[in-house]
């Protein structure tokens, strides 16, 4: 609650929060099917119709309403982004804590595996995963999650290590708290701030990566829409029907902008000094 109020007080937090809120609303409406038209309905006599009163953002190659598909696409893209980041954050936190807590050997093993993952170029790693498992929503989620897990592991491990060394954990230990209690209570509490910030920024990245994967034909399967797929489908129609690229392009930019603004605000709120640590 305090955080929410703080976000509202912060200028970029306010703007970012507003954008993210608006997108969430559009996403939910899109996923529930509460769109101006059926996003899958092919109005074939109105193929490649320019934006008009009926079709606010025009229609695509099949005569489907771009505005409705955009809402659906925001929903689909957000699902991929949210789940992939959630998995990455969860896996990263567990691995990072394990690495920090269980001593050198574990630390060595976990961090070497993370090094292996990090050493892969992100898009290539995602590409390999998608190639093995076949394209689709769940594969995109897994692929993006694996790509971002090492980053979260690092974000968690650093603070966890220094917190572990700090006295208050020692103090708690002498007072007889069980080690799992120490872990959850003290460490997690202190990790909330960097994690929240990282999650917000990672969401922006995940949206971009999803777009990139879809551009290479490795993401969401048709006829469903995702922002990346809409963009990639529009590329050879860029001149015939520019609205097919303009609207999804703007939509994706603003959504990323929203998350970035919100992330910045959170960073300022939690700790102005943390900028350096996360950079």
């Amino acid at each position: 609650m305090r955080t929410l109020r703080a976000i509202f007080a912060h200028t970029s937090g306010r703007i970012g929060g507003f954008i993210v809120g608006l997108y969430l609303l559009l996403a939910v409406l899109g996923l529930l099917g509460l769109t101006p038209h059926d996003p899958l309905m092919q109005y074939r006599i109105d193929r490649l119709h320019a934006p008009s009163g009926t079709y606010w953002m025009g229609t695509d190659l099949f005569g489907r309403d771009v505005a409705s598909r955009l809402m659906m696409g925001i929903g689909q893209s957000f699902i991929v982004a949210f789940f992939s980041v959630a998995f990455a954050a969860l896996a990263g936190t567990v691995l990072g804590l394990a690495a920090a807590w269980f001593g050198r050997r574990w630390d060595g093993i976990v961090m070497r595996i993370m090094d292996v993952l990090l050493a892969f170029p992100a898009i290539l790693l995602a590409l390999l995963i998608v190639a093995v498992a076949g394209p689709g929503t769940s594969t995109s989620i897994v692929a993006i999650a694996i790509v971002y897990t090492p980053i979260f592991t690092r974000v968690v491990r650093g603070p966890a290590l220094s917190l572990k060394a700090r006295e208050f954990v020692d103090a708690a230990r002498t007072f007889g708290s069980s080690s799992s209690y120490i872990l959850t209570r003290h460490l997690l509490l202190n990790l909330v701030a960097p994690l929240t910030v990282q999650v917000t920024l990672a969401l922006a990245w995940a949206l971009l990566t999803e777009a990139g994967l879809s551009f290479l034909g490795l993401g969401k399967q048709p006829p469903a829409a995702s922002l990346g797929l809409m963009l990639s489908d529009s590329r050879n129609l860029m001149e015939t029907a520019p609205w097919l690229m303009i609207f999804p392009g703007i939509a994706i930019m603003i959504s990323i902008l929203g998350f970035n603004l919100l992330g910045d605000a959170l960073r300022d709120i939690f700790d102005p000094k943390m900028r350096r640590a996360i950079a």
Partner: protein
Amino acid sequence: MTYLLRRLAVFPLVLIGVSIVVFVAIRMVPGDSITAMLGTEAGLLTPQQRDALAAYFGIDQPWFVQYGRWLLGLVQGNLGISPTYGKPVLDVILERFPLTLELALLSMMIALVVGMPAGVFAATRNERLSDLGVRIAAMIGQSTPNFVLALLIIYTLSAGFGVLPAMGEFSPLWQDPLRNLGQLILPAITLGFAFAASVTRISRSAMLDVLSDDYVRTARSKGASARSVIWRHALPNALIPVVTLSGIEFGYLLGGAVIVEQIYALPGIGRLVLDAILQRDYALVQGCVLFIAFNFMIVNLLVDLAYVALDPRIRLGER
């Protein structure tokens, strides 16, 4: 020194891990070198013909035998032969790498030349209108997918102005510097756009941090001019996160920019790997990924070393 040795000692371990992952993953993907070459016509082959082709591509053994063979070659400094290019894998990679390196360097230059002054400028005008302008521009820059930017640039230039950098045959820097630069400048701008935005943001926030630090305040109270405070005292310290960010970003760029290379038709590392995957050129995929991973680790090591060099307060081995 021991730190450096310890870091280097991890290299082979990570590289072996990377190589196994790639080796297994690429073979798990359905389709093989034969279907890549023949497409659906592969269905016309008799079993004997298939065997002959499998032997030709070196995929007639179980994967661990193939891996052992490959590892043995690697120890002897041999990454294998690419069937697509009919050349040793390393030769193919080294032919493509200069372009990727040059593109990465150019993008970084653009990012630093644009981003740092913009960031410092915004920091000194904290919360004023010009600061806001810079920040919004940087935000938009960071939020633009590079393939959208690339397509827009090509379309605007060719349809609107009737000009375009020479596509197709790529001229290396040492053959025709001018043509080379002409070919790389747009891709570099495309990649440098978001990069510059990140640099702007990070240098702005780092600068703000440093400006609020005690020693800067001390310097100010001692009567140092604003300009000298910024350039002499604050900037060197604000450089640390900028170096880290640029280093990491540079490391990624050395892995090739698949989509941008695709659109601008540049024969760089990114497209090389993508084509190798699509054509199931196993030796080449393997070699490329290893090469990219190696570069990435080297760059990261250098970044860490630079980090220490810039900030004596940090001891090695802490990260």
